[in-house]
């Protein structure tokens, strides 16, 4: 396909002339800008490339490309794109209660309220930026080294752990996972769990998420006790699921004034069903957040992304069963072996490099991906990953609008960028 018509490329000519050390061409004269006479045949039309090659060889300034001249100016065009208007609106949900509201939190966090796809501010301004809740656990757990080194000093004490999340890592919310209550782990009692929740509420003044162990038989009892211990604080209770006594959890949340997470596994219909059950139990719409399940980068992230994106689109199109803020357990990213394993188990792979660089990036990419699908809230673990996801989502949200004008880099200069920091 390439230049079939050409007989001799200008590169050939240049090389040819170079090879024979030709510095000057005899019998070649140049008239004006582009006309060229060769030998005894004046006026022969030569390909512009050839003219240029010859000219540059002879040190003649290169003229503008003749094709361009013929065209003159750019053809005028305007870019216009219609705004998308959606019928649906995502529920606005507030987590945490201040003293005035019957709790003891210093501030509350509100998520949801969208009338557009995430960060499509040109359709409709996103009302609340996504929020990040940093995880802590009620017992020391096995963590990837890159994560563990940040929490080693506080793993024995959930209150201290929560405090560190807020003070040192700037967490807007904290999630306490009551995993020790799992009968196959430590089988600690619901009362112990309630005590842990009280400790965490004492230790930090941000809104908190209370997570069970994920054991469907034990969680109803544990979360009920935790909800009671945290009465009036408007915590987020994680979670109600179809394969357990969700009714007991929902009723406890309702009674003690909490928000509940409705959790299903990559299944839109199950999510609609569970949400409807919750409506039937009298849970108000503004007390529901959904968790459609997070899968890690490389391990089902495509399913999680599409599942969330479809739910959000359905909600915007008017499906009220799905019009709720979405919570994502981004810490799941650490389940990917690439996040923690030292070397690839596959012998033919290129070198994986240090695991400590990979892990946080797996968390970042998983978080941003689900943020772009429709996630409103991210439960995360690695401080740097949380910081990066927060910065990017806030920028896309528009938090830095007006602030950054002076700092815009001359982006076209990336072509010649030579390693320095470009401050403009």
């Amino acid at each position, binding site marked *: 396909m390439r230049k079939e018509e050409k007989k001799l490329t200008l590169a050939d000519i240049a090389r040819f002339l170079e090879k024979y050390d030709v510095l000057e061409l005899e019998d070649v004269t140049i008239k004006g800008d582009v006309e060229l006479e060769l030998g005894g045949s004046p006026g022969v039309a030569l390909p512009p490339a050839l003219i240029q090659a010859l000219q540059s060889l002879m040190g003649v300034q290169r003229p503008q490309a003749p094709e361009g001249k013929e065209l003159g100016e750019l053809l005028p065009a305007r*870019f216009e794109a219609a705004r998308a208007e959606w019928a649906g609106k995502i529920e606005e949900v507030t987590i945490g209660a201040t003293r005035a509201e019957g709790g003891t939190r210093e501030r509350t966090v509100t998520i949801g309220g969208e009338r557009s796809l995430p960060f499509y501010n040109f359709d409709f301004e996103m009302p609340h930026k996504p929020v990040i809740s940093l995880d802590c656990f009620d017992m020391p757990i096995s963590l990837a080294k890159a994560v563990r080194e940040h929490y080693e000093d506080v793993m024995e004490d959930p209150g201290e752990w929560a405090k560190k999340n807020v003070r040192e890592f700037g967490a807007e919310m904290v999630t306490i996972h009551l995993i020790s209550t799992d009968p196959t782990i430590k089988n600690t009692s619901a009362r112990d769990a309630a005590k842990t929740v009280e400790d965490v509420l004492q230790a930090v003044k941000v809104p908190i998420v209370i997570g069970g162990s994920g054991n469907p038989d034990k969680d109803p009892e544990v979360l009920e006790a935790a909800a009671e211990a945290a009465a009036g604080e408007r915590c987020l209770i994680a979670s109600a699921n179809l394969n357990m006594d969700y009714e007991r959890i929902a009723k406890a949340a309702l009674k003690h004034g909490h928000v509940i997470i409705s959790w299903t596994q990559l299944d839109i219909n199950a999510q609609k069903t569970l949400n409807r059950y919750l409506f039937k139990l009298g849970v108000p719409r503004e007390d529901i957040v959904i968790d459609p399940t997070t899968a890690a980068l490389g*391990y*089902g992230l495509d399913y999680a992304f599409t599942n969330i994106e479809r739910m959000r689109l359905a909600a915007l199109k008017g499906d009220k069963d799905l019009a709720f803020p979405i919570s994502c357990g981004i810490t799941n990213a650490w389940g990917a072996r690439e996040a923690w394993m030292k070397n690839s188990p596959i012998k033919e792979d290129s070198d994986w490099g240090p695991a400590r*660089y990979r892990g946080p990036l797996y968390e970042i990419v998983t978080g941003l991906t689900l943020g772009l699908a429709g996630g409103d809230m991210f439960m995360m673990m690695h401080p740097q990953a949380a910081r990066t996801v927060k910065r990017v989502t806030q920028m*896309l949200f528009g938090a830095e609008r007006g602030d950054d004008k002076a700092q815009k880099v001359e*982006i076209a200069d990336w072509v010649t*960028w030579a390693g320095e920091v470009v401050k403009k």
Partner: protein
Amino acid sequence: MKLRSPMEIWGYLPGTNCGECGEKTCLAFASLLKERKRKLELCTPLFEARYAEKRKRLAELLAPEIREIEIGVGARAKKIGGEDVLHRHELTFFNRTALAYDVWDTMDAEELNERVRRITEWRKFYIGDFLTVDAIAIRSISGDAGRFAECVRAVAAQTDLPIVLCSFDANVLEAGLKEAADRNPLVYAADKANWKEVLGLVKRYKVPVTLFSPDLDTLSSLALTFSSAGVTNLVLDPGTYPTGEGLAESFSRFLRIRRAAILEEKKVVTYPLMAVPLTAWMRYGAENALEASYWEAAIASVFIIKYADIMILHSIEPHSMIAERTLVANIYTDPRRPVSVEPGLREIGAPTEHAPLFLTTNFALTYYTVESDISSNKIDSYLLVVDTEGIGVEAAVAGGQLNVGLIKEALESYKVAEKVNHKTLVIPGLAARLSGETEDATGWTVLVGPRDSGRIPDWMTTNWPPKSGS
């Protein structure tokens, strides 16, 4: 694609149900065309002279909304664009985002060779195949045509990957084209200032070209001007600002362009889009390499998900390439492919009756991961694949799809006891909580394997064969 249903497509086919295309009826073939699962060429009768008009019209109507262009030549040539939908579940995305990693003309020869080699040879195993990256972008930092030419020559000689020639100076670009025009490189870029010269160049060398402007009116103008001049292998770069409001605006430009192209059929912007996450490095500088690489990968993620068809990146550290390329694989996987594999008892290698028996779920991803970990390490074994409705181990244990009853049933219905002589089952570490109950219900000895199948080789050295009496 301009046709909205198989019936509409059917109207353009011969309607003879001759079966030449491999389908029983023209309508069946039309359905597959609609899903972009077949090429029109398979309907050979349509290529008879009497159908010439219909064929031409149908080909036009079937063309994807976003123009598909190809860069490079040969086995590693890469198609970009060709998309028809805004959300992958509406059909699928077709041509995954091309990842182009940079080199520059001020590198010394050795450094350049090593970098080109690393990019060219990089690979990572993922679901039954090796992922690779797609292109090398050569930046002219020197601004010197001779130096650029030399660099292009060296790169072209060393790699079969497609090349992107990057400079705003037409002289420099031409020096690159002289070296590598036969490689069908993508030219970067024409802008408001240099467009006449670059237009001349790409017409002459017949290569695809990127148009750059963060101003969408100007970008549209450039696209209209080039296409009117007969140059339609275009890529649009609306600018990638790395931070702050600039980033938000860049994101919105990508969204608006792609939506206008697909939903409103705005012809002037129906071209592949380019993002340049490399601009992250301009804010962090080379001395903050880790942070810069994270920021670059973060921006890359945003634009992999939202509509970049090709992107230019700087970090070739493993963490960057693994994360970026895996995300591309995830977003561009066809969502129509099945989530699960057939349950059953698989033989890995040549297992004997003493071989270990591993259990996993029928979630395709889990299955292929475990299967490749075992086979790549040459562990002859049996793999019992149970039907968890296509859900992975951890989630299936939590959700109850992986349970003792299911395991018992699988052991019985696949007659596992007839294959092995040891009645020992290795379950995934993530299913540890099922071990006791499973022993009680099945009478088999249950060993808890590692939490990640990548550790099976290590696990084997201390745990297999099982010590008698345990």
